[in-house]
């Protein structure tokens, strides 16, 4: 099977039903996508597939057709994505475990809706955060919406 991850091509041999999450983490050593629930309920494993936020713990690797972007592939070289910059400015992360998934979900939201309202954010940002970083996360999305880049 062939996977295109962060601009690199990978050949892997895995069972047809193996979720993309475990192929990324255990086979390709790409640890940004996190295991949280295994049933698509928390969003910690979110990556972008052709720009669409996808929960990889319930996506069979064999079904993936497209370019996969994980948090590792988000910066442009050394330059962080504006959403990452906004996350640092608002000091969003606490334990940080869910933040790769949150950031990628926010990137996808801003691609679709460059100036989201609070209601837009509520509708799309459904990833779980047990540290309760939601208020700063919301502020950081609004911040990123106002940034160039």
């Amino acid at each position, binding site marked *: 099977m062939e996977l295109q991850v962060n601009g690199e091509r990978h050949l892997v041999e895995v069972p047809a039903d193996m979720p993309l999450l475990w192929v990324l983490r255990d086979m390709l050593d790409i640890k*940004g996508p996190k295991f949280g629930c295994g049933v698509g309920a928390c969003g910690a494993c979110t990556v972008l597939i052709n720009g669409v936020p996808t929960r990889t713990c319930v996506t069979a690797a064999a079904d993936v057709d497209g370019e996969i972007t994980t*948090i*590792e592939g988000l910066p442009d070289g050394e330059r962080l994505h504006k959403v990452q910059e906004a996350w640092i400015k608002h000091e969003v*992360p606490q334990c940080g475990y869910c933040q790769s998934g949150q950031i990628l979900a926010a990137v996808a939201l801003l691609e679709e809706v460059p100036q989201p309202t609070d209601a837009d954010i509520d509708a799309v940002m459904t990833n779980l955060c047990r540290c*309760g970083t939601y*208020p700063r996360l919301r502020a950081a999305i609004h911040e990123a919406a106002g940034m160039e880049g």
Partner: protein
Amino acid sequence: MGKIAKYTRRGFLGLGLAAAGGLAVGYYYYKKPYPNPLPDTLAEGDFSFTPYVIIGSDNTITIITPRAEMGQGIHTTLAALVAEELGADMDQIATEHGPAAAAYYNGAMLKEGAPFPFFEDGFIAETARGAMGVLGKFLALQVTGGSSAAIDGFEKMREAGATARAVLLEAAAKRWGVDASGLTTERAEVINQSGGRLTYGDLASEAAKLTLAKPPALKDPSEWRILGKSQPRVELHEKVTGAAIYGIDVQLPDMLYATVAMSPRFGAKAKSADEAAAMAVPGVLNVVEIITTTGYGFGIIASNTWAAFEGARALALEWEAADYPADTTGLKALWNEALDKEASFTLGGEGDPEEAMLGAEVIEANYSLPYLAHTTMEPMNATAQFKDGKLDLWLGTQAPGIAAMATAKLLGIEPEDVNVITTRLGGGFGRRTEVDVPLYTAAIAAQTGGKPVKVTWSREEDIRHDTYRPMAEARLKATLKDGMPEALDYRVAAPSINKSVMRRSFPEFAERSNPDRSILDGSFDQPFSWPHSRFAAHQIDTDIPVGFWRSVGNSINGFVHESFLDELAAAGGQDPLAMRLSMMKDERHAPAREALKAVAAMANWGQALPEGVGQGIAHTLSFGTWVAEVVQVDMRGGAVKVEKIWAVADPGMVLDPANFEAQITSAIIYGLSAAIGQEITFDDGRVMQENFYDYDALRMAGVPPIEVALLENSPRMGGAGEPGTPPLAAALGNAIFAASGQRLRALPFGNEVEFDLG
């Protein structure tokens, strides 16, 4: 960054802990309780001045932060404490968790375990607090818990910085042939009166040979440049780029993968297991039995995590029956039987409530609270390699020393032969103090022929094998006099967390564990003057494991006590705020009064609100921090919409305002998730919930705006991570009462009223 990167990489991989050469230095001044664990670990050109500071000859400064970073920002605060006294700026400093070692004991945590209210300063209370601190040293508990890390580090870390600065000044004075008193420091450089400068790195090797005659003086807070001001968190960059390494991300050469399938009936052994079916799953390599003080079950070893999960499913395990009532109804009956019997112990109280109630109209209420799981975002996991009689253990842990002791015992080796490497923690909330994860991991690592193995629990395993916040049942009676509270009879039935934890960690001491004050924390120790009161604990004992859940017993009694006060205010026709203020008569209760008045002002308490909209108020003092909260709900649409939350916290001294505010907000949302919808229930002897679809927490849309203010009236420093949780459920329930007249006495409230979560 060369040296720091070296130390960091080596420290993380645990390879350099005994191997590195270099000029190790034995000196440090710190009441010399334990050997400095650092010299053996240093790279060439690095010098350690205390167990907390390493300075490289290239002027790199690494501060050892021996508490777990689980999102509470403690590494930043501990680094700031050192930097303030060291004469360096935050941008010059790296942090490193450091090894598990006795020198990093946490005295502040056990101090507050003594059975006295925080504000009680009497001789006996002080003596008991001191004795508990000594006990912590004895057990060398390098624990992150009890909201204690900054309090514990407040003296130690500043002393460490001041000590290092003093020997660096001495070294510079010798080099220049001048008196040290004329020298100053700035950005990790010593400056003489003619403007000459020497970097700390340049002086490190000479300074490391010096000793001090007396401890250096610490700065007066008025001179602080760093402390008291918000600092950028030290680990933000790695956490927005996916670079942070949590336990689950550990990757070692030739590593195997595994998971566990433990008995869902606590204390019960396996009846049957289809090992052949598990072995038939592609990628499964072995199935091993696990027998430990924390549970029975199997480890499934495989070539990847997914295969291990599939193997665990294929095992189709059957289990013996459990020794406790099989369902929640039966368990509640057991709790209520305990309430019918004599109390196990009482704490605090005054006067004679029984006599005071004779002939008076008695107000009675029963409260119920469920078991709760922690559900850290990162499921339980650890990685271990057991080779040549030594165990390397990569663990996101709040208690590395305890993990070392427990795994050593299991494997029949010495604790010194266990090397715990603490990773980042994907949430802790008390769960990552436990020994079950290290024990199962060590048991599996003992059967891999010396290969490293990463053990990851499924979310289902994580929720069904937690160490739960205890279920509790409370029976309260009170009487009023002239509309004001007069007598209180407060009884709560709950299992002892201490006993449960000791049984898992140090079983030989379990039966000697003291009465567990946490059963009553948040009730008897609150700042109220009752003419007559009695606080009684009815201790339960079952095999269902209970543990430390963010704010521990305060999460139970904060709800019960503050809800009941609201009931008494309603019965007496009093304003809930005014009644509380008039019960806080003692001078030592002043911080509570100020916090309540401040939060009331923020929320415009007492304003006319539309029919169906209401505000509720509550205050709990826990972990030395006084927290008052107001919740506003709107029920005009039928369902409960939580509109806004205001909070005022007084920890006496705020070292980092932005971080403290984040912790209070976090604790409020943690409490709000639990109050609205979380409960662990039992049927057939096992936990019924298994994943986020039946044990959820709030998402973005369900979280209202939260406004936090901080005060510094309290005479002693309090904690940050937990105190925001206890008042929340009561403030929410009281708001629902204010909006609807409906009194909720059982958590979670979502069982009785519908919530509008956006």
